[in-house]
């Protein structure tokens, strides 16, 4: 009994620390921006960082909590991004309040991403391991390809959609193209703000952390740890897998809308395999199944190339080397033991990872 109470307290404490870090970070960032101590290039990174944090946390739900490798997470971001942009430009006159318009766009982007998540998840989750990974990769590429041939414009008659070329839709005078096939979405009204990003991160954390400590969350983790055992005690494997996957897709959709509405143009190519991989790197480096780790890794690794700017052309090379060295240092038995002997700090860190880290295949 005592042990149980202690455990609940520990998880709540851990959650509070996670929320605390995000709030503290937000306050520091706001302070730096207000006093003008932040470089403009870094300031421009703030909304993308928020979007990537949400992406990393949501992918961690699939990879860490559900234990399935997804290589197409950027596809859901893409769905959210472009549907968000379309909604935002359509409602420009109806909803004049920018934050409200952003919220509505993000909500619809997330819902559409969730629907696509169901469409992808139902077939994909029947497969296992690397086969599931390749199917998510394939869906990500298909989504990118399809967005590339969609043309959307709107005029006084409402939204018009066409395929393959801009000529497929006839707009009246005063009409506006929203989505231009391979040219992407152009002339976006930039309504995303750092505050909106902060709110989205908090909402994401509330959803994911509560899910993890709920009955459904435990069922999802049971499926991850031993599918057959979970099934034999009456847990519906398909239901819980799909639940985690769809929530993850919806969160990615929110992040996509936030991301896209921060730029004046966005192309489908932005959300390709490389972006999926980038987010996966955040998740793995932050610790699989460790939500706080995902947040920190996403923020640090998005800023890192910026900080390495002084090395100019060499920065991405250095980034690659750092990535390889971290993976070897944290996973090689010999080096791990060596570090454990020397560094007390690192010892603590690896222990934490063992406790919280899932066993993704």
């Amino acid at each position: 009994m005592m042990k149980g109470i202690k455990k609940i307290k520990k998880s709540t404490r851990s959650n509070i620390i996670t929320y605390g870090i995000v709030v503290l970070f937000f306050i520091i960032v706001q302070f730096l921006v207000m006093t003008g101590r932040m470089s403009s290039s870094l300031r421009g990174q703030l909304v993308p960082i928020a979007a990537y944090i949400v992406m990393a946390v949501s992918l961690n739900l699939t990879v860490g909590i559900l234990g399935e490798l997804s290589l197409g997470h950027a596809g859901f971001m893409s769905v959210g991004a472009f549907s968000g942009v379309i909604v935002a430009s359509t409602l420009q006159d109806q909803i004049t309040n920018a934050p409200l318009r952003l919220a509505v766009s993000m909500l619809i982007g997330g819902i559409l991403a969730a629907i696509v998540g169901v469409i992808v998840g139902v077939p994909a989750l029947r497969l296992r391991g690397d086969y599931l990974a390749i199917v998510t990769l394939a869906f990500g590429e298909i989504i990118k390809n399809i967005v590339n041939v969609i043309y959307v414009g709107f005029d006084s008659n409402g939204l018009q959609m066409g395929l393959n070329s801009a000529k497929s839709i006839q707009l009246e005078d005063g009409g506006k193209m929203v989505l231009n096939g391979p040219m992407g979405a152009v002339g976006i009204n930039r309504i995303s703000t750092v505050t909106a990003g902060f709110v989205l991160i908090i909402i994401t954390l509330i959803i994911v952390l509560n899910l993890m400590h709920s009955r459904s969350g435990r069922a999802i983790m049971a499926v991850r740890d031993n599918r057959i055992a979970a099934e034999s005690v009456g847990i519906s494997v398909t239901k819980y897998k799909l639940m985690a996957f769809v929530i993850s897709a919806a969160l990615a959709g929110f992040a996509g809308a936030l991301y896209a509405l921060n730029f004046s143009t966005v192309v489908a190519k932005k959300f390709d395999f490389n972006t999926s991989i980038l987010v996966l790197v955040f998740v793995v480096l932050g610790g699989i199944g460790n939500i706080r780790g995902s947040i920190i890794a996403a923020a640090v690794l998005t800023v890192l190339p910026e900080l390495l700017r002084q090395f100019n052309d060499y920065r991405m090379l250095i980034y690659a080397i750092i990535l390889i060295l971290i993976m070897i240092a944290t996973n090689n038995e010999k080096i791990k033991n060596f570090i454990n002997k020397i560094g007390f700090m690192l010892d603590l860190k690896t222990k934490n990872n063992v406790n919280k880290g899932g066993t993704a295949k």
Partner: protein
Amino acid sequence: MDFILHLINGISLGSIYAIIALGYTMVYGIAKMLNFAHGDVIMVGGYISFVVTANLGLPPAVAIVAAVAVCTALGVIIEKLAYKPLRAAPSLAVLITAIGVSYFLQNAALLIWSSNPKSYSSMFSFEPLRLFNNRLSITSVTIVTVVTGIVVMAALTLIISKTKMGKAMRAVSEDKDAAQLMGIGVNKTISITFAIGSGLAAIAGVLLASAYPIIMPTMGSMPGIKAFTAAVFGGIGSVPGAMLGGILLGVIEIIGRAYISSELSDAIVFSVLIIVLLVKPTGLLGKKINEKV
């Protein structure tokens, strides 16, 4: 007649995919890892052959040998430095390391050769083959690609089924520990697998650059993904599967591009992959894995 031409082009592209996919599938079979840096080894092969012919002015044959030699060495070095320390690590950690290696190769190429695309002159510049009173003309690159594909596949099948090395490879992919107990040098076998895979990637790089004559630091990533898809399509870990998957993928891509939509050709390829995996969850020729409770 058009259809036959598309089919031949498809087989040609498919042969390139198959050669790349063989590298993926052999490494996967033996080291159980997805080597995402494989696509970038193709790029290195393309650039080395380019440098040898365009900058040093040597004949194409030398260029091909140099590309294969450099890539083989590169593959072995990558394995030794980046993957060997992670033999016992979880597969996701190895996957991220492979991605790190991929970033490294791309950015190293970017520094050495800059991001500007370079135009590549084909290594095989003899007369195209004309059939049926010039109604069907097959380019030299296509012929060389298909022939190379057949030779590589035949040679690899022979190596794997007949030689002692091939036997060792099969044993290691079946059960690493048991193979070691039988006196097989596991590390050596893995190195040789990487060497063969990377050598094949160099050949694929030369063929790819000759067929689509532009090279740039990111040229390997899309063919790499496609070849990975091909390997999974045929059943990852299976050598005949990679060949079949590669060729089918190439044919589907070219036919899809010609008759359905050029913008959606990738989407068609990936849709076919998904449908196949839904019917056969471990690919066309993949082994069915039985789960133990």
